[in-house]
């Protein structure tokens, strides 16, 4: 055991240094950063294959593990969406599919994409990889717990996928799992399916809590010298705030799942009123289905921002780096993230305007919901104002960013329709809702994920991804996805309700058959286009162009590690010392168009730096 920690003594030396590393600089006072409060973290260095790559305590490896597993579940979700679109667009070709299958696919697609794909990918994947690097820590504060977190997620995914193979199949109650139908006959998978879903969610929440504590404490307590909260890259802010939301919102999901499981297994009546089923009164009584909806959306709405806020953060960094310009209004951006996060706990019932809850809630929730629109709009303005008078590199990463802006603004605007209580009434439960949330929390975050992959791939592997393939990937995805979801809003205007297996006999629906065929075709193409990325990754790993250090000329700490890709412990002998924010691009008077966060002021005395 002792040799696993052999580096720790050498590293500890640095904590006793008092003056910054700017040795030999003319004015040490200018570069003064106060000494480290806490001694260096001693890390467990694995030696065997298992401790290095399987049960690994290195946050970067855990991040990649999260990324791969989330992507794997995401591909399953993608295939399910294909099957759904096949049924909706070309029902005659989907003869093998029954309504039961369809609803199971709908449910699993939704749950996988929201929780097991997007949440796990952003927080588990990007969070683990980027937080320690960006705040200048050696690792997450509790590497062991972090490892357990991933393996809990692994088990949760296993349980979720196991539900495909139990009698009755996976649950088909819609991703919202509304009782009573979720646990009653008449809904597919109302037996084992729903139980495994609840178990899987509880495991996910437990696992995520372990990871989430790590992310929070790393950001709050383990930043490097000079790294104040207001110098952190927005990526960290986004992931950090999303994690706070997750820590406070997942409890409601956990409680809801647990109570529903008790309703199913023990016959309690938390959510179950008296029910007449097939002429018989069931042994339930007195419960309230709306209570579950409140619990679910008390989790569910923050969940939307758990997905959106990391995307906001990452996109800010990508836009800034690739337009060679500081993010416009950094402080406003930070406050917007924090305010959106805080407000997201006060808006949940805007998903329930027509749920039969107390009708007076409509006033409260419409108001709070539209208040959130203000900080969100400010973020959009700041992104496009960052482009203004920038020096925009039109590479693949930037294309994804631009695609994000278009889809996010589109989805954000339709969100104002749905958040505004009486405007929501005709549109809720129609395809308009589907189009809205796919645009705003499906496609838009996906654009960010893709942009982030193209951006940070050189960091993780030391190789560039192919630009040519990347552009194909982008245009197919963006144009395809836009032509799926933009026309879909109009299905909602017609009044086509969601979660319909088929409805071609309805008079106004027949007019939309052509549109459905078009949407399905686009969906097949977009789905297939994602495999370009996988091909690109495999190809670039083999014969990609070597990236070298800091290939994008970025400022933030993750590019400034002594080795690329960074090793376990990230920083070699000496932790970096931070002197400025992460956005000093194109500073007047500076030699280059970027000044890294570790550059001491004495080295760039000529430049007119405004914010530090």
């Amino acid at each position, binding site marked *: 055991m002792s040799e696993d920690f052999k580096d720790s003594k050498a590293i500890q030396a640095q904590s006793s240094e008092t003056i910054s590393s700017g040795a030999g600089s003319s004015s040490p006072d200018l570069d003064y950063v106060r000494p480290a409060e806490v001694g260096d973290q001693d890390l467990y260095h694995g030696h065997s294959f298992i401790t290095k790559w399987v049960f690994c305590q290195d946050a970067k490896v855990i991040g990649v593990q999260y990324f791969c597993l989330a992507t794997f579940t995401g591909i399953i979700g993608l295939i399910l969406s294909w099957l759904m679109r096949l049924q909706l667009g070309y029902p005659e070709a989907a003869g093998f599919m029954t309504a039961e299958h369809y609803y199971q696919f709908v449910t699993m697609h939704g749950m996988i994409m929201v929780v097991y794909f997007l949440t796990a990918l952003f927080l588990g994947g990007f969070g683990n990889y980027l937080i320690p690097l960006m705040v200048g820590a050696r690792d997450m504060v509790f590497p062991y717990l972090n490892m357990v977190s991933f393996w809990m997620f692994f088990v949760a995914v296993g349980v979720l996928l196991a539900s495909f193979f139990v009698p009755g199949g996976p649950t088909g109650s819609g991703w919202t799992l509304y009782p009573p139908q979720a646990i009653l006959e008449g809904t597919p998978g109302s037996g084992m399916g729903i139980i495994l879903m609840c178990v899987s969610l509880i495991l996910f929440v437990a696992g995520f809590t372990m990871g989430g504590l790590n992310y929070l404490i790393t950001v709050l307590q383990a930043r490097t010298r000079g790294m104040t909260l207001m110098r952190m890259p927005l990526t960290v802010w986004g992931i950090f705030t999303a994690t706070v939301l997750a820590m406070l919102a997942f409890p409601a999901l956990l409680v809801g799942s647990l109570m529903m499981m008790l309703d199913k297994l023990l016959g309690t009546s938390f959510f179950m009123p008296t029910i007449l089923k097939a002429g018989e009164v069931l042994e339930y009584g007195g419960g309230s289905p709306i209570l579950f909806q409140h619990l679910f959306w008390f989790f569910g709405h923050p969940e939307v921002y758990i997905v959106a806020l990391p995307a906001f953060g990452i996109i800010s960094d990508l836009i800034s780096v690739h337009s060679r310009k500081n993010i416009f209004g950094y402080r406003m951006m930070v406050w917007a993230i924090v305010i959106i996060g805080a407000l997201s706990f006060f808006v949940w019932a805007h998903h329930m305007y027509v749920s039969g809850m107390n009708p007076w809630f409509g006033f409260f929730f419409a108001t709070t919901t539209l208040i959130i629109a203000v900080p969100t709009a400010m973020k959009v303005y700041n992104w496009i104002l960052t482009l203004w008078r920038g020096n925009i590199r039109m590479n693949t990463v930037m294309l994804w960013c631009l695609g994000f802006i278009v889809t996010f603004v589109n989805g954000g605007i339709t969100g104002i329709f749905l958040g505004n209580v009486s405007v929501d009434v005709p549109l809720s439960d129609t395809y308009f809702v589907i189009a809205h949330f796919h645009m705003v929390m499906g496609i838009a975050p996906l654009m960010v994920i893709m942009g982030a992959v193209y951006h940070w791939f050189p960091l993780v592997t030391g190789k560039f991804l192919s630009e040519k393939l990347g552009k194909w990937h982008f245009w197919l995805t963006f144009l395809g996805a836009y032509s799926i979801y933009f026309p879909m809003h109009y299905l909602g205007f017609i009044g086509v309700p969601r979660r319909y297996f088929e409805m071609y006999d309805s008079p106004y629906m027949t007019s939309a058959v052509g549109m459905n065929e078009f949407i399905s075709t686009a969906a097949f193409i977009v789905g297939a286009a994602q495999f370009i990325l996988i091909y690109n990754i495999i190809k670039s790993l083999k014969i990609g162009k070597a990236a070298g250090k800091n290939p994008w000329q970025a400022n933030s700490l993750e590019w400034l590690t002594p080795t690329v890709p960074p090793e376990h412990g990230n920083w070699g002998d000496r932790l970096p010392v931070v002197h400025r924010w992460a956005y000093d691009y194109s500073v007047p008077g500076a030699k280059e168009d970027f000044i890294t966060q570790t550059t001491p002021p004495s080295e760039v005395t000529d430049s007119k730096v*405004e914010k530090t």
Partner: protein
Amino acid sequence: MHAGIIFFLVILGSVLFHIFTPWYWTDIASNWGSMDDTITLTFWIGGGVFVAVCLFMVYCVFKFSYKEGRKAEYKPEDKKLERILTWATTLGVAALLAPGLIVWNQYVNVPKNALEIDVMAWQWGWQYRLPGEDGKLGTTKIVNINDNNPFGINLEDSNGKDDVMIQSDVINLKNNRPVKILLRSVDVLHNWYVPQFRAKMDAVPGVVTYYWFEPNKVGKYEVLCAEYCGVGHYAMRGGVIVQSEQDYENWLQGQQTFSELIVKQKKIELNETKLVKK
């Protein structure tokens, strides 16, 4: 450059699609034109913002694409601009919110002269009950439901005796008379939704929910279930016939009340017992 052009075409295409779309809302057949108006208002303001933001983005792509040696502007913050934008957005949002709240206020306050209709949902179908001459619906309980009492009316409640029972999935409504839809469900969540009326609300087992509208166009409409309720969800349809006062009265005459139903059932039972005795 190409990217900018394609993005521009996407924006242009979106606008053109909206103008020329053959798919738009069905002709309204109720008083909720105000909902359509709020949607239109949101469309103008929201759509304007969307187009403006995206065009600004496209302009930036054209104007500020990478040139070797050019330096981007360095301007971390612009307090004044940010303040202007915040206030403008707040104003815009308030302009959207206010009419929304006003319409919602109308939506939750039912007019006094509204005719109450009890819509009972089950997996997967509808049936309806109208108050009789006393204008009051009788209280119900799910445990009371049986073949003789399809709505589960409490027998001791005198209000329920004259209730008109329509054991069909089609309901007739009087034109230009507000109706208060009282929704209840015997099993899972449902939602009684007619796209032409715009309004909707979930039927939740264990409670009674409501909404109201005033049909104002004679015709026949399809009722859809708009809240997922199990495998039969997509097939859970019903119908509404909006007709003139005269036609409505004629139709109403032909319907059975609860006491009539009980009497009829009793006769049948008597006959059966007689048959058995014989």
